[in-house]
């Protein structure tokens, strides 16, 4: 075979993977979840603050990975804290990824059943989706990255067009006054925004595949900025158009925004279809990358071939996805998994990084 040096993923591909992972279900629910907690229109400040916080956590993860070049966290965590605790931590992370992918699938199925396919059974929706995801991830991180590179530009363009069109019903008074009730509501929203920005944690495995791992931080910053900008625009447009009360009342505020105006004279009058298209694609990307991260973890933990593990994980993810009985339980499930991530990917990397620095573990000796 015509061997190529670019079998590893480029920095641009890393950026795209991070962005695609972060742009998950949040696009549709973020305005509501954030406004519920903040109760004013200042959620966008929380977004920026939340982004800063996850940046710090992300940088910790990247720095940690750079101590062990070419290795994913599943491989080096045992070197840091010993094999027993290390295996447990790896297992937790794997469970986390499996749970996230199950959650995303379920959300996707619920929205699809609500807006696109009213009478189709959920298994039909989920199964076909999972099989295609499996087909993609069996060929590894390179194919995943290439597919994401196709999805992301489509997403950005369509989302921006949708938001631009909805500027017709945008009312600036809905997002004013800025900081009318002081800083406290903004702080309250921080937890939600941090959860929305989940996705940076994929950096625990990506640096091992990067062509230039030293550019990890740069990739992280750009990769998280793209969702930040998109989320900011979405949030401001949705709150500006629907007002704070309107947003809190609807389950999928962004879709409601799209349904609340019609543009005559164009081929299509309603644009929620396009939003759903890109949103399903984004869920697909989040699902595949978490599915991949989970199977990669299992493969490296037990030092087995990754292919059978991918096949084996499919029914598990399916069953987990069908566990929540209704939408409320589904969102509770999502909240729970997300809060776990704060400890798993916010505090743990800092701890591991400290241990590494203190005991001078890892391959990179900085001061000799």
């Amino acid at each position: 075979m015509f061997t190529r040096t670019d079998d590893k993923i480029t920095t641009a591909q890393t950026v795209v993977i991070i962005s695609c992972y972060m742009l998950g279900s949040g696009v549709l629910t973020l305005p509501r979840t954030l406004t519920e907690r903040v109760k004013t229109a200042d959620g966008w400040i929380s977004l920026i603050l939340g982004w800063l916080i996850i940046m710090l956590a992300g940088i910790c993860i990247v720095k940690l990975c750079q101590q062990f070049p070419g290795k994913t966290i599943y491989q080096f965590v045992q070197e840091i804290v010993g094999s027993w605790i290390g295996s447990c931590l790896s297992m937790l992370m794997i469970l986390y990824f499996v749970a996230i992918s199950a959650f995303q699938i379920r959300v996707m199925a619920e929205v699809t059943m609500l807006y696109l396919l009213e009478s189709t059974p959920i298994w039909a929706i989920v199964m076909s989706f999972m099989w295609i995801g499996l087909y993609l991830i069996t060929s590894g991180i390179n194919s995943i990255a290439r597919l994401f590179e196709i999805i992301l530009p489509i997403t950005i363009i369509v989302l921006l067009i949708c938001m631009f069109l909805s500027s017709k019903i945008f009312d600036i008074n809905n997002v004013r006054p800025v900081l009318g009730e002081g800083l406290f509501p903004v702080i309250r929203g921080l937890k939600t925004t941090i959860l929305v920005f989940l996705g940076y944690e994929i950096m625990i495995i990506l640096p091992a595949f990067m062509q230039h791992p030293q550019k990890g931080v740069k990739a992280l910053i750009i990769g998280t900025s793209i969702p930040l900008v998109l989320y900011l625009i979405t949030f401001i447009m949705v709150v500006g158009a629907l007002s704070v009360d309107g947003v809190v009342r609807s389950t999928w505020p962004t879709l409601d925004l799209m349904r609340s105006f019609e543009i005559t004279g164009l081929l299509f009058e309603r644009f929620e279809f396009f939003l759903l298209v890109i949103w399903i694609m984004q869920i697909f990307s989040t699902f595949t990358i978490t599915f991949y991260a989970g199977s990669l973890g299992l493969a490296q933990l037990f030092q087995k071939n990754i292919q059978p593990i991918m096949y084996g994980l499919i029914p598990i993810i399916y069953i987990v996805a069908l566990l929540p009985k209704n939408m409320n339980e589904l969102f509770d499930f999502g909240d729970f998994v997300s809060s776990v991530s704060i400890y798993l990917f916010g505090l743990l990397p800092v701890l591991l990084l400290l241990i590494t620095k203190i005991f001078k573990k890892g391959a990179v000796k900085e001061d000799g």
Partner: protein
Amino acid sequence: MWKTIVSYIPDGIVFVQALVILIVPIIIYFTSKWLQSALGTRPSEDTPTENKSEENTPENGKAETEATLSFTGKYEADLASIKKKIAKNCDVHFREFTMATGKKAAIIYVEGLYDKELIEVQVMKSLMFDDAEETEKPSDDTKKSSDDTKITKTYLMNKMLPISEIREALNLQELISDILVGSTAMLIDGIVEVLLLGSATGKTRSIEEPLSEGLLRGPRVGFTEILSDNTAVLRRHGKNESLEMIKFQVGTRAKKDLVVAYMNDIVNSELLEEVKRRIEAINMDYLPESGYVEQLIEDNTLSPFQQAQNTERPDRVINSLLEGRVAILLDGSPFALIVPVTFSMLLQSPEDYYERWIPGTLLRMLRFLATFFALFAPALYISFISYHPGLIPTKLVMSIIDARQGVPFPSLIEALIMETSIEILREAGVRLPKPIGPAMGIVGGLIIGDAAVNAGLVSPFLVIVVAVTAISSFAIPSYSAGITLRLLRFLAMFSAAVLGAYGTILFFLLLFSHLVKLKSFGVPYISPAVPYRLDDWKDFIFRLPFKVMKRRPLMMKTKDSDRKK
């Protein structure tokens, strides 16, 4: 506590579904693996060795046969052994004559293939008449050789036969195979070697404009079935020492020449080695067309996409060679293959470069749009009509529903009726003789379409959709890529019929999942779209001015990346 846990344990049916969800992909995996190994002629690492031995090491195998089959130098005996081998064929002729020196000689040729003028004017004339005066002079030379032979092989070749193409046959086997492809053999009493003169000059077609890739602007030259003509056309592109062509012989029973052409200071040497390796691994008794070669060297047999571009246009081949690609030409086929291929190449036409860059860019964008329509238009129709009529403007929906009032079928059946008939029409049109073709188009397209609408079989709106789809698929420059899209369109229609717009999105994801996995000779099929390489995008959807396109495609990893000095 226990109760809540129990309440979350899903029904048995969920576990059954989970089992199904596991088993189906496993079955698909093993089936495809089995299919790959059963059908996949993809050259694996171990096959080439056995084949190579047939071709590259004739010394061992033929060493002992040579002894029995080599020529004795005795005219009668040699002629008899040749006759025994091939005299049965009605088109093989033996012409015996006496040379001016009195020696017996014979020429053996195949009717219709041999170079009649050359043999009659240059060979027989000089042997039968001019010989006498010449033989006296080179007495020094001849003394060294055996006494009774006055004329030796070297003397013949140097002094008596004023023709350029002359070589000697080493053994009977080689001689006979050469005679049968059109060389003329000459046997002279007293000379051990048998000479082969000239080469085949069968009836050939003149160079014409390529039928499958017509251009309004650009050279009106197409390849023909004669390999030497094709390589000559390539040579004529300009003074260029770096164009190299190496010859292979393919086919185990009927051997054919195959030429691999490349620019030696541009092409990536690993790519070249890989192409050579795969060609050497071809194991097939006969290759009638370059399509055989294409399918025998491709990466993925199960993919619907072609993994080598076929073209009749020499200008296209040269341009690809300059981009660092490799061309494969097979004797007897006017289609050259270009590898590696990317999907965007199939949507490009040389005209994009010959016209100015603004119209060129417009044409390219149109083709991408046409590809989208050709793939998804009927699928979108089905999903909107059957599942989401609320998404199209109300007035439009009213008129569509109005038009569909009398249609008794669901939209899938309706679309299938029309799509299938238009595909059949097209297939029939290809085979029909030229004068009837257009007539059939009118009967099939206009009359049947109109009648189907009037009879209430299909809605007029669908006829528009199908027509747009058909026209769009004609806009794709490569015929083979068009077939692929036609096939995929039906898959898109079925997925739309099962799961509506969601199914269409899934089909899109599946299609692109396949495309990102597919590689043609190690180059991702979907490049240059991904991975992002801004330099390569100058020649992708846009065709920027030549001043900007300074580099060869990065994806080809060429030795010399600059197009300018």
